[in-house]
């Protein structure tokens, strides 16, 4: 009787753990998962959460950083995405997932310099403590996660199909996904891969 009690207690405890970690996914989100919100500090000193955007129809979350040449190559295109889609209810939020102690060029001061120099029109926040990017499953910079208004993941992957030659881009994955969301249609290409810099974590 005593053993049964402990076994049942143990099972309930384990089940309880799952109840408190609805968004805990060791390998990151898949399309269709509900993404976690966050409260991260931006280059303007303010804290940003998805919940702040009461009128948003969706979110273009981009894990990006200062130093990675692939991320830098996309900066102008990220600004264009925000300028085009934020007024339509789909703002860009850029999150730097790197540990500044491992990669000093990705500290907050450098983020501020970069944001000012390029004239970023979107929040550029730091994943302080690196607790958000593992939940999303970001593995490189840049890495895009498009969410709908209820934070369900609709697209994961690259911005377009040509990092080095913007003039030769044939497929704009992010734009196509947003246009589908706007039209209440299924996103045709929900997952893509691209070359990027690994995320800097202490080893």
């Amino acid at each position, binding site marked *: 009787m005593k053993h049964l009690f402990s076994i049942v207690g143990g099972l309930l405890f384990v089940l309880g753990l799952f109840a408190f970690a609805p968004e805990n996914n060791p390998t990151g989100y898949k399309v269709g998962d509900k993404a976690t919100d966050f409260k991260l500090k931006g280059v303007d000193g303010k804290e940003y959460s998805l919940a702040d955007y009461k009128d948003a129809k969706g979110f273009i979350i981009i894990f990006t950083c200062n130093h990675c*040449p692939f991320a830098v190559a996309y900066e102008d295109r990220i600004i264009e995405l925000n300028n085009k889609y934020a007024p339509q209810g789909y703002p860009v939020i850029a999150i730097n997932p790197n540990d500044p102690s491992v990669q000093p060029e990705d500290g907050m001061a450098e983020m501020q310099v970069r944001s000012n120099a390029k004239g970023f029109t979107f929040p550029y926040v730091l994943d302080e403590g690196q607790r958000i990017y593992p939940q999303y499953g970001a593995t490189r910079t840049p890495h895009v996660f498009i969410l709908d208004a209820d934070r369900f993941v609709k697209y994961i992957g690259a911005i377009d199909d*040509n990092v*080095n030659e913007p003039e030769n881009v044939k497929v704009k994955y992010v734009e196509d996904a947003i246009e589908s969301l706007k039209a209440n249609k299924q996103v045709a290409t929900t997952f893509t891969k*691209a070359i990027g810099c*690994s995320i800097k974590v202490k080893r």
Partner: protein
Amino acid sequence: MKLSVLIVFIYSMVRSIFLMVVFFFVVISGVRAQTVVPVVRFDALQTILSQNNDTTYVVNFWATWCKPCIEEMPFFVEAANVVAGDKVRFVMVSLDMPRKVNQSLYPWLAKNKVPGQVILLNDPDANTWIPQVDSAWDGAIPVTLFFKGNKKEFVNESFDNAKEILAVIKKVNN
């Protein structure tokens, strides 16, 4: 024949020979300082990846702007020295930006050792070829593919020393 004409003739001949020799050495040293890196699309790399023989291939994806890639390069050089007599071929696939090789790849290669052969992969449609290297690869670098015949090992992270690299080579050799 006048002596002065002869002297001028001999002088100009010697000077021509001297200049040819100087030119020869300039060309040679230029070739040595600037390693020409073949630029390929994925189909050329795919030919390498489809090799099925008694050679062990170590295909590393790197770039000069990737810090962990640069940090592990000496370990690959060390490992290559250890297996120098064996049938092991190192192919170091650079993902440096093709338009910036003169500022990035070439200066780096002039100062640093790499094992085997360096090629520059310039194929924009990465979403198509990344899974063809390995289905587990999401696109971050560095990664290294080891294979011999049908045996394959894909390492999705950087190496901390040459010993780790040699261990994977040994694994696909068996």
